């Protein structure tokens, strides 16, 4: 029973981070209709940003997160404004193509700039934990989880309560309607992509604290984000976080009760089943 509780906690903590990874991808996908294959690369860049801020600048990783988010926001903003905006109205799959190309470029440049060495963000408190009734809760993972929930909540409020957020949602519904809203779609697109990139940056920093960063971590993270974003209903922040939790818990339980080599079967099997059985109910939209 204690083991079960421990595994559940592990799954939840991991799932929160998964959810954060997928938030940005879901937002960009849902609003801009861009399936961003470079999302994992943006997470990777965020990880490096926090890594260097911590090791070279001596800034605590959690304090460095907002800085990394700003950097990634600017990067994403410019990328959308001056490159992706050029093609957003062509076939949807084209955005897939171009972000794939960007992913290749980012990964290569990262290797050139940062080398293929493994980097870990290792503040003194990483690895310390607290014991609650026999269940070990690691501080860093807990903090990462809380940050993920916090950012999801902020995103939700931003989309729901602010004028810009509403403009973004209107854009998701209908570009023409958004124009009537009096927004400049070029700016809104850039803003949305920037926000997605900023969220990826935060996820990257946290990922570096609990795992490690190399130029090549992106592919797996893109795939995970893709799955979770779909499970959670794209630009629905709460849904995406729930999707992350679902995946995190499913993976942890599978590793314990079935076999660790089965985790992929379960997580992707779950995905297919959910899609085939009940598309409309589970997903935000179908």
């Amino acid at each position, binding site marked *: 029973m204690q083991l079960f509780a421990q595994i559940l906690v592990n799954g939840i903590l991991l799932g929160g981070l998964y959810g954060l990874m997928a938030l940005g991808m879901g937002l960009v996908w849902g609003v801009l209709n861009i399936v961003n294959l470079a999302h994992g690369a943006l997470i990777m860049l965020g990880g490096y940003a926090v890594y260097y801020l911590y090791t070279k600048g001596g800034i605590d990783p959690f304090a460095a997160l907002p800085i990394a988010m700003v950097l990634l926001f600017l990067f994403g903003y410019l990328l959308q404004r001056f490159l992706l905006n050029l093609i957003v109205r*062509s076939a949807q799959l*084209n955005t897939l193509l171009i972000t794939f190309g960007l992913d290749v470029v980012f990964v290569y440049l990262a290797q050139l700039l940062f080398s293929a060495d493994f980097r870990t963000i290792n503040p003194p408190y990483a690895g310390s934990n607290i014991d609650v009734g026999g269940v070990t809760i690691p501080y860093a993972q807990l903090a990462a989880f809380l940050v993920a929930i916090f950012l999801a909540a902020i995103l939700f409020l931003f989309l729901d309560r602010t004028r810009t957020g509403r403009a973004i949602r209107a854009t998701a519904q209908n570009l023409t309607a958004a124009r009537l809203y009096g927004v400049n779609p070029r700016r809104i697109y850039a803003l949305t992509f920037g926000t997605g990139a900023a969220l990826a940056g935060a996820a990257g920093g946290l990922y570096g604290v609990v795992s490690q960063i190399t130029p090549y971590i992106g592919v797996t993270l893109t795939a995970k984000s893709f799955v979770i974003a779909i499970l959670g209903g794209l630009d629905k922040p709460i849904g995406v976080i729930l999707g992350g939790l679902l995946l995190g818990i499913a993976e942890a339980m599978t590793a314990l009760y079935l076999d660790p*080599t*089965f985790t*992929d079967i379960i997580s992707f*099997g779950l995905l*297919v089943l959910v*899609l085939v059985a009940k598309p409309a109910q589970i997903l935000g939209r179908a």
Partner: protein
Amino acid sequence: MKNLQRAGLALLAVGLAAVPFVASDTLVQFGINALLVATLTQGWNIIGGFTGYPSFGNSVFYGLGTYGTAIAMAQLHLPFGVGLVAGGVLGVAFALLFGIPILRLRGPYFAIATLGLAAVMSAIVATIGFAGKNIGLILPLFRGDTLFYELSLVLLVAATGTVAWLARSRFGAGLVAIREDEDAAQVMGINTTMYKVGALALAAFFSSLAGGIHAYWITFIDPGSAFDPTLNVRMVIMTLFGGPGTIFGPVLGSFVLSAVSEVLASKVSTVASLFYGFVIVLAVVFMPKGLLDLFQGFRHSGFRYFAQNMRRFRL
């Protein structure tokens, strides 16, 4: 004109068939790979380009073909021909079985379901002892690259022939109607379920045979390389690069991209992937409708083609 075109194509096919007899082994190796990838791309074109179902799981057919062949040869010691058939049957059977539930999904949901299926199959194979678990299987070594090349060429010609047939047949018209508007297609008398599953099975057929040929050629397979998920992205990208829903676009797209990446990999080696990435980014910006459209458009309106596209697709 039409006859001239046919003659040109026949000449091209003969020229390609002659490659192993005149060219270097390297080119033949490259050719085998490029032909197989082109076949995969053409397979994707059937389900993605014609039917409008953006599969991200065609690697599952390739992988099943690979494993069907490998299991038959490495575990059961059957001849290659039997293995190839086994692989093809496995791939098509999978398409028929899973096509019905997943083809009910549309757009990105279909895409992700296929992606999920491919990942599940890869993970499942990695736990089956008979399939060599995650360690893989070793096939007997066969020194016959000419045979592999010609087989791959035949397969590609067959796939392209099938697509050409689609472009003029009733079946193909049905697929295109589904791509354009599935609800409308249904009330116009098209058995959409059967057509979609048929298209997927065709794609599966060619993809799994390509996998089978590749398995025997490369002699060692494991789940990671047989169900390589990046293969899906490559198929999509090559189709889009050439021109989806056309007969020769996907072939052209995959030849050009294969050649570019191969030349880069052997000439500039370590910066190859950087260039490859840039090529793709620039291609999307300057020819968002594919190579074929670029050729036609450029002939028609010269450099204005780029400006026209830019205006049309920018925000």
